[in-house]
């Protein structure tokens, strides 16, 4: 899923009514958001966190210092580990690690649903989708 489509989906999910327009920068098509009252914002997780604030749902970024740091850690994980790898072995490692991390948890921060869960879900969707298909085949 292209980053712009993902952000549009997130906007809907957050209940933001007016859709933003995103441009893409560089070879990796990093999303850019031109905000009305400030400089543009670049990067998927940066824009996502901005949208969460726009929707006044700051709790999705974590409530305590620990939660906030954990959320950002997994957002970074999403753009560096999940997006950064395309080779099968590496993706397997990512899935294995996540599985063992989540063994005793409901969500990435423990018991609270956050932006990290949303973006990681979007990011993993493509792998899990294809692995289902290949199993069906």
């Amino acid at each position: 899923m292209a980053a712009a489509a993902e952000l549009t989906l997130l906007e809907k999910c957050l209940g933001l009514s007016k859709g933003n327009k995103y441009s893409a920068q560089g070879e990796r098509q990093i999303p850019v958001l031109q905000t009305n009252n400030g400089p543009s914002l670049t990067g998927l997780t940066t824009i996502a966190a901005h949208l969460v604030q726009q929707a006044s749902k700051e709790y999705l970024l974590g409530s305590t210092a620990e939660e906030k740091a954990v959320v950002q850690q997994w957002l970074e994980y999403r753009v560096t580990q999940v997006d950064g790898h395309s080779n099968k072995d590496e993706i397997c490692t990512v899935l294995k690690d996540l599985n063992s991390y989540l063994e005793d948890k409901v969500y990435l921060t423990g018991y609270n649903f956050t932006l990290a869960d949303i973006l990681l879900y979007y990011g993993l969707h493509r792998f899990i989708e294809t692995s289902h298909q290949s199993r069906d085949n």
Partner: protein
Amino acid sequence: MRLFVSEGAPGSLPVLAAAGRAQGRAELLISTVGPEECVVPFLTRPKVPVLQLDSGNYLFSTSAICRYFFLLSGWEQDDLTNQWLEWEATELQPALSAALYYLVVQGKKGEDVFSPVRRALTHIDHSLSRRSCPFLAGETESLADIVLWGALYPLLQDPAYLPEELGALHSWFQTLSSQEPCQRAAETVLKQQGVLALRPYLQKQPQPSSFEGRAVSNEPEEEELATLSEEEIAMAVAAWEKGLESLPPVQPQQNPVLPVAGERNVLITSALPYVNNVPHLGNIIGCVLSADVFARYSRLRQWNTLYLCGTDEYGTATETKAMEEGLTPQEICDKYHVIHADIYRWFNISFDIFGRTTTPQQTKITQDIFQRLVARGFVLQDTVEQLRCEHCARFLADRFVEGVCPFCGYEEARGDQCDKCGKLINAIELKKPQCKVCRSCPVVKSSQHLFLDLPKLGKPLEEWLEKTLPGSDWTPNARFIIRSWLRDGLKPRCITRDLKWGTPVPLVGFEDKVFYVWFDATIGYLSITANYTDQWEKWWKNPEQVSLYQFMAKDNVPFHGLVFPCSALGAEDNYTLVSHLIATEYLNYEDGKFSKSRGVGVFGDMAQDTGIPADIWRFYLLYIRPEGQDSAFSWTDMLLKNNSELLNNLGNFINRAGMFVSKFFGGFVPEMVLTSDDRRLLAHVTLELQHYHQLLEKVRIRDALRSILTISRHGNQYIQVNEPWKRIKGSEADRQRAGTVTGLAVNIAALLSIMLQPYMPTVSATIQDQLQLPPPACSILLTNFLCTLPAGHQIGTVSPLFQKLENDQIESLRQRFSGGQAKASPKPAAIETMTTAGPQQIQVLMDEVTKQGNIVRELKAQKADKNQVAAEVAKLLDLKKQLALAEGKPLENPKGKKKK
């Protein structure tokens, strides 16, 4: 909570520097662990630093740990910090790990280390200077500063990798490095060993291979949006209204072009192409085409401009080629000089002179400079041991000798390098040497040679550089290369050769010798000018009045920026020295390099057979000009840029503007009554035009091309919003509005045609013909946007400017130039590679085999999972097979057939 760090793990730096923030908020224990220790139970790979929280959870991301410390101190998150941290993780880290790996693990230096991070460092520098804040996210030091400082510290603590051109980055880095928590973190992690302290850690990391592909990018740096003041708008409108009157008279074309006292005199050279090679697209964009854009721009500014180039004809390579083709060296030069001249003519290169180095003037000037150097004691004599073939009665240049490699025993090693092991060889060390021509055994004879005493010239050179460099437009890579040469110390350089094809050495005892090409090739610029006008010294001995711009690819920097200036300074004859040395990076072809021997890539003479017009080639090559970083020619990208930028953006706009004048106003430019929107547009266009000038004055050719496309994008939007095709059918007011919009649009088209002239001269002339642009406006570009097509001006016949490139057309061209070696089955390819795999390729494969071997050994030692070992072994076997093929020997039988 407990922080696990590891000595020499780069992530420990920012974490330790930020740890102080948490003081008094929570108890923090710090433990040191080995880099291989798996602290985090759920992660497969070892990761340090790690923070174990009191809840039992782990933070394993360096930024997240730092963020946590900052959050504990009461700091609040913000968009800008998030953006910096995301950029650090996704852009900076991959670049930095590549640079550090090259530096620390592979022991590389200079450009190899710097080039992966150049773009990222420039980005930080620009951001700091643009916001004019001392810190990344504001007036005070914060999370983003600590995280980026920690990431950059290992590399930038060596001043060689912190160029002074990046002033804002420089002072930001110094400020942070001098703070106590940062200093302490640096001492703990690097233990005063500098970057080498990271070695044990980095050696265990996989080689950052994925970075290679990413370094090559054709995308522009970010664009900025401008805000306009009322004053700027008023000035733009005033300039517009003056129109053609504000144009100065056109200077008549002089012949010959000579500098004029009190005016701006621009002397432009493009690196002299070596005569016996057909230039490829990389050569063309690297020098001749880049210099051509600047020369054309310079003429549009009405500066006295002389642009010269020529073929570099002397040397061993010409002799070899002559022998191969059974011609004399002179005949070879005559033949190839014409090929070069034809190619550049086809590309529409506007040389004032395209000469050659084999002329009497070359001999005269070279010998004169040499004599002056001798007279001033800057030439040394020394004995050099060299191979001499008694049968052929001559000393053998390195590439004329073959023998057994002293390192690996390969039987057909060349005198300069072994094709098998890739090592550089000193020809006299070859075992069983043979003369390549007669196959007899040469003998070692000593031969007297002359050396240019560079160490003695070091002082005047440095004085000159100190005077020249600040404020000049030398490209960063050129500065970097010169700096590293000076740092490594200058050594005497041999300037003579035992050859026949060259400039004779006018010294008793040296009658059989000629000057080494690199000594006299750069003098070619002078002699070529001397063949153009007998007043050549007005250009070349006139440093006060002449600005010398020299264009080249970066491998030529030492000769132009250091060696030739030394000769010229030593000659003490008031020579004009390079004021602006403009060096490009390399252009790759698709995913690899251009290769004549493998037929990969497009060469100058083939471009014309593609059916794609020269201007489209020029546009695309300039669009991807390797300015600041390597870039790659890609057929798909060329199709995309042609169809989107030229056809849909630029061509579409200019064509519509002209068509509206023809269709709605009978070919006459309508009255324009400017509204405040139009005034803003005028100011926007003016601003972009000024940006274009600023960029081209700094020779940022690729960036300036973006300004043209931006203006035409503004133009398209303007037409789209104002819909003149609807308004023309409306009320009187609507029709007037349609007129204004059409008039303004067609004037923007006229402006674009002039701005486009340096890049696409033929297209530019076509537009000017279609619009019947008055002649003075065609040859002068001012810094203001003028109304050059006033109401009532009659335009000519408008027709489309560009053609769509189709997928199948491009696909067949891609096939044609792919060299056919890529997708063919490995067997026939083996024969191919056997004769063509270069020493570098073989070296790369050998390195990979060694590396993969280590991986396998390590896995076995760790008793790793069997499947994993098997997979790595399979990779190793495959690499070995490739290596064997590349070396031209069958696997089963290593001493099999020899190549012919």
